[in-house]
Structure formats: structure tokens, C-alpha cells
């Protein structure tokens, strides 16, 4: 249990120490400001999506449509703003509205039409993808420089985007741990029948969870639009945000079946992935090799979690 909650932070620490030594031996420094900042900025986008994904997975669901939601909302943001600072607020409202709508659709398909979450969100993702491919060949719209500051500004060494991610994580943490909805969400993921018997309105919980998950993807879309200066129809899918966000969540110790885990672990998972990236960058190892390491790390992490879970065999409610 400890391992599952804190393991990822231990792994992160170890990675940073070992990586730092390796980089130092290589004649570089892991913590040069520029490299750290660019790393953090890249991690922030994934982090925001992964936090939303954490809620979906905790509730026993998952969301494969996030990558396309990101692309779509980056376009909505950039096209609504169209270079004018005055349109920033309407653009943000539009993005949040559209992403919430998509989340609502996901939630309704899963709860009311009883479609498996994998299929429902995959289908919705494909719908959005079709719309994007139909309407856009390349980047569109433009983001005013004032909004680009979200992507590039930093306070001291800390990029604004990281603060945004931490804010999202903070809100998610409060939602999960300090609101009724959060308690019910975890109950739904832990055991749907127990939740229902205790008076939890399970469908409504799942629907709200999916809305939040989609809105997180929308926020990531806003952020990416500010980074790119424009909306991009393939930024989400090419970034692999759907599967990578799920990977970051399970790396952080949240169980794919739901009911166990949390956002702290996910932030750690995202940080670990970023740290691996950073070390490999500094060591000038083939950039693609880090992808291999990622894959190995994720599978190994889940295997270790599974092993520790079976050895202690806790987490069972007895039946006579």
C-alpha cells in the first residue's frame, strides 16, 4: 500500500539521483535552468490531462477521447481568439463549454446506453477526429501574445504552466478527498453495488467524472494553443495524450480497475516520465530510446504493484 502510494516518488528521487550522477559524470548538469524549464513545460500538458484521466480511472472508467478533445479545443481557443486579447475570456468559456459537452456525451453513452467506456470514448474520439480531419488540414487561428504568456512565462524558475498543472492537481485533490462527490467517485470505482446500496447516485457520479476529465483535456488544449500560438488539429493524437495519460496514471499507482489511487501519484508519474526524458536529453541518448524506457518502466511498475499486492493480499472484504 505504501509502495503504491509513495513508490513513484521514491522512484522519481532515485531516478533524479542516478540520472544526476550520470549526467554529471558526462560533464553536464541535470538541473540547468533552461533544460529543466522546457522539461517542466512539456510535462505540464500531459499532467493536466492525466489528472482528469485519474478521476475517470478511479471511478472505474477511462477516457480515450482526450487526445482529440485537446486538438479540438486548441483550435476552438485559437480560432475564437483570432489574435485578439479581448476574445480570450470568450474563448476560454467556449473551450470549457465544448469539452464539458463532450464529457457529458461520454458519460451518457456509458451510463444510459450501457456502452463499455473503452468503446464509448473511442467512438467519441473518432467522431471528433473525423470532424478535425474534415475541417482542418493544418494549424488554424492564432493566439494573442498576451495569451502565449501562459505557455512561456515563468515565475522565478517555475513556469506558469506548471503552476497551472499544480492548481488543477490541487483542485482535483480537494475534489477527491474533501467533497462528497469525490468520496462517491472512489466508491463507484471501488464497488458499484456497495456505492448504490449506500445511496450513491452512481450514474450521475460517472457522468460528472467524465465531464471533469474532458474539461481537463480542454484546459490542456488551451495550454497547447498558447504554446503553439495557434490551434493544431493533430497536436493531441500525435502527442499520444490518450494512452500516455493512462500510462502516467497507472505509473502513479492508481489501479486500472478503479477505486484505488489518487492525483498525487499521477503528478509523480508525470514527473517521473519527465525526469527520464530530461536525463536522456542531457546524456544525448537517442531521443527515441526514451520511449522504450517509458514502456519498460510502465509495465515494470504495474508488475511490481501487482506483485506487492498479491504478496500482502490485503484489500479484501471478507465473505462468509
Amino acid at each position, binding site marked *: 500500500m505504501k509502495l503504491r502510494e509513495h513508490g513513484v516518488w521514491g522512484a522519481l528521487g532515485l531516478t533524479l539521483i542516478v540520472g544526476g550522477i550520470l549526467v554529471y559524470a558526462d560533464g553536464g548538469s541535470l538541473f540547468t535552468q533552461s533544460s529543466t524549464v522546457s522539461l517542466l513545460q512539456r510535462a505540464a500538458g500531459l499532467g493536466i490531462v492525466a489528472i482528469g484521466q485519474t478521476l475517470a480511472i478511479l471511478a472505474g472508467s477511462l477516457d480515450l477521447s482526450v487526445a482529440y478533445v485537446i486538438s479540438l479545443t486548441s483550435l476552438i481557443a485559437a480560432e475564437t481568439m483570432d489574435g485578439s486579447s479581448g476574445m480570450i475570456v470568450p474563448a476560454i468559456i467556449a473551450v470549457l463549454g465544448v469539452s464539458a459537452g463532450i464529457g457529458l456525451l461520454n458519460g451518457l453513452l456509458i451510463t444510459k446506453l450501457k456502452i463499455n467506456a473503452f468503446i464509448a470514448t473511442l467512438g467519441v474520439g473518432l467522431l471528433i477526429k473525423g470532424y478535425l480531419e474534415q475541417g482542418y488540414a493544418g494549424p488554424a487561428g492564432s493566439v494573442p501574445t498576451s495569451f502565449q504568456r501562459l505557455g512561456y512565462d515563468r515565475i522565478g524558475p517555475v513556469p506558469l504552466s506548471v503552476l497551472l498543472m499544480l492548481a488543477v492537481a490541487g483542485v482535483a485533490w480537494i475534489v477527491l478527498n474533501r*467533497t462528497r462527490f469525490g468520496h462517491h467517485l472512489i*466508491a463507484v470505482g471501488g464497488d458499484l453495488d*456497495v456505492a448504490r446500496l449506500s445511496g450513491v447516485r452512481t450514474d450521475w457520479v460517472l457522468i460528472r467524472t467524465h465531464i471533469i476529465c474532458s474539461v481537463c483535456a480542454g484546459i490542456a488544449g488551451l495550454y497547447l494553443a498558447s504554446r503553439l500560438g495557434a490551434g493544431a488539429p493533430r497536436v493531441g493524437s500525435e502527442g499520444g495524450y490518450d494512452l500516455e495519460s493512462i500510462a502516467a496514471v497507472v505509473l502513479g499507482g492508481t489501479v486500472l480497475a478503479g*477505486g484505488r489511487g489518487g492525483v498525487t501519484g499521477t503528478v509523480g508519474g508525470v514527473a517521473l516520465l519527465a525526469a527520464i526524458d530530461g536525463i536522456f536529453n542531457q546524456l544525448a541518448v537517442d531521443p527515441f530510446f526514451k520511449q522504450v524506457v517509458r514502456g519498460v518502466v510502465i509495465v515494470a511498475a504495474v508488475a511490481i504493484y501487482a506483485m506487492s499486492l498479491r504478496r500482502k493480499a490485503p*484489500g479484501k472484504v471478507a465473505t462468509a
Partner: protein
Amino acid sequence: MLQLRGVGKSFLGVQVLQDVDLELAAGEVHAVVGENGAGKSTLMKIASGVYHPDAGTVRWLGRDVSFRDPRQAQAAGIGIIHQEFNLLADRTVAQNVFLGREPLRRGLVDTAAMNERTASLLASIGEESLSPQAIVGRLGVAQQQVTEIVKALSLDARMLIMDEPTAALADHEVELLYGLVRRLKARGMGILYVSHRLKEVFDLTDRITVLKDGRRVTTVDTSSITADGLVRHMVGRELSHYYPPKSAEAGQERLTLQGAGNNRLHDISLALHAGQVLGICGLQGSGRSALARAIFGVDAFTRGNVHLDGASIRLSSPRQAIRAGIAYITEDRKAEGLTAQQSVLDNAMLATRALSPRWFATAGRTLKARELLAAVEVHAASEEQEVRYLSGGNQQKVILARWLALTPRVLLFDEPTRGIDVGAKAAIHDLIRKLASEGAAVLMISSDLPELLGMSDRLAVMRDGRIAGELPGTADEETVMRLATGASS
């Protein structure tokens, strides 16, 4: 506080309860006893709002009530602790207790208040040692049970229904439960205590209501009756069912266990003879099923010796056991016996196919499966019908056909007739006897004592993971019950 008058209930034309009266006073612990199928659980479900009675009235705190669902009964103050707990393993005690009703402060869950209120509820029943912040999945069964009870208390329950509360508890935990029940009683809580175990009934309860075949036999003060007297009330059901004649003599020893054990079983020595049915009786949790599963290699023996037809064997997986000629008809058909979405024929051929897979279906094997399905008289629309649509009896026959295809030397039946109608029951009894007479050694587990007595050539009684004694097949119910419950004779 609770009064049931003339309550009746039938399912699909079968009268499960008839004209039952029951009264529970505040501060009373009232035992409901009876054999399996006597109607105890139906009665409890009526009291807790799961079922509606067909006849009679339910009065609660002086008013006639008709609960729509268990939640309404809960809200009215009737709590029920099921054998299967409704808890989230990964959440704390307090989170479980207040699930769905988390206390708020300024819109946020007030964790401190939640823990505090849970702590005071725990303290009120003398369970201060249990932390409200403990994760339920890491607690022992007894503490999980306490969590369930506290959850009921938090709903202001004024009476509790406890369904076989000690079935899953270890001996020292039972003592703790005793204390808890007494403290609840002292607070004025009424408790309906359903149990098989006579010792508990005598230790804990004020009055006892005995059910038999859906009717109330009697309600007596606990102090006015002896264990023997109680057993006599419970048993002695008229034999409405004729069992096939028993075997004349024992054949050779087929399967012998010497000092076998694992983490749930201790020092088991038994012999199964060819041509005979060995009945295993014991209360729930006494290790009956664990014995069958250990022989079959599911949770294998870790100690002792097992011989099959004289040869020493060690079975560590079902596959090995099946290869050795052992078959196991599980207690839980749905979870372990069927592949529900596959056809009747596929289910019947599953073991054959698993043990000697072929590339091409041979007419011979299919034919044999069909013959077996016909021989055990499975009634299905067609052999292509999904097995989940069959009645329980027919499903059980399909499973039997699956094993018969391998002509096993040893058959382990775990509750072979549970949830099966009378007609199919008789058919399965005949089949079991026929298999024995053809030379198989049969081990049969059943909670239905008359059935076990009717079927067995010999009996072994289990208690707490051990063999408490062996009896001839002619033993009477009282003797068996005394041995199984540990009631002194």
C-alpha cells in the same frame, strides 16, 4: 418493537414461509434457528424490507409498515448485517460508515467530524481500539463486521439482524462478538440472531424461535430448553423424499488421506471407498468445502499424505487432479461451475476438450457427450442453447455430464442439490448412487442434513477444520448435529 404476524411468502408457487409469528423486544437477543431451507433467510429478508410478505403484517414500533426496499427499512431503524459485507476495501472505517451521508462543513466533507463521530460510535459499543482511519481491507473479518455494525448504528438503527455473524470468525473473534452483542443489548437494541451454532444461541440469546419447513415450530425462553430439546425441535422433518438404497458393502479404498492439512485444514485422515458415498457434514466454515478443494488441488494440501488406489500422489492443480481421475462438482455453480454464455454441449465437453484437445471435432466424442446429456436427462431447448438459460437442476446435470465423460474414479460433490427443485434433486441423488454402484468413490458435502443422511453410507463430521468424528450412515440427525455444533452430549 418488531412484530410479525401470520407472515407468509411463496416463490414460484412454492410456499417458503407460512403463518409465521415473530416478536422482538427492545434489549432482546432473539435467535432464529432451523435447518437449511427452513425459511430463516426469507424471514430476515421480509423483516429488512428486501421482500414483501404475501400474507400477514409487519409492525414496527407500534405501526404497520410496508417497506419498499432495504434503504427504507434502514431509515426506519432496522439494520442488517449480511454474511457478505457491503464495504469498500480501500477506504477507511469512517469513510465506509458515512458513505453516501458524508458530513459537510462549508460544502466540503468534514473529515474530522466524520472520524470523530465514527470514533464515538465505536466507543459507544466498546470498540475504541478500532481506529476510524484504518483501511477496511486490512482489517480482520471481525473488525470488518464491527464496521458494518457501526454503519448500521450511524443510521440510528434500533434493531439489528445478524445473519450467521460468526460463520467467518475465528474462535477468539467469536468471543469479541459476544461482548459486542451484549453491549448492544444493554443499550436497548433488539437483535435478531440467525445462527446454526447452538452454543452461541445458548450463550447469547434470550428467546429462540425455531423454524421448520417454513413454519414456526415454537418460540421458547432460552433458559427453559436444553440443547437436546432444541435439536429435536429443529430436526425430524418428515421424509418427503425417498433416497436410493444404500450400498451393501464397501469396496477397496480408493482415496485415502493421512494427516493431511493446509492453512485451513488440520490432521485430516479419511478413506473413500469404491462403491460408497462418504457424506461430509459440518457447519458453514467448518472446512467442508476446503477439504474438497484441497483434494482437487485448488488450495492443495501442504501436509500429510494422499493415496489414490494405493499410489501416493501429490496434486497441486485441478488439471493434475482431473488427470488422476478426480472430479469436483463445485458449490457455486455460477461462479465456478458454468461457462454461462457457452452452449449446453460446449459446457458438457469442456473437461474432455481441456484434457485431450483435438484439432478436429470427432463425431465420437460429440456423440458421447450427447449420450451423457441424454443419460442424465438434461432438458434444454437444444444442445446449442446457452447454459445460463437452463434451470439450476439442468445446469447441474450438464456439469455432471462434463465429468462423466472422463469416467472419474473419485467424485467430490459440494452441495450438489443447492437451489435445485425437488424433481431434479431426486434425479441427481439417483445419479450419485448409480455412479457409486458402478465403482466410483463419492464424497458428498451438503448442508441439508436429511439429504446427507439419506445418501451417505458413512459420515464424517467436520468442525473447525478438523474431523470431529465419523459415524455410520444410519446415524440420526441429533447425533450429527451435536457433533457438528459441539453441543456436549
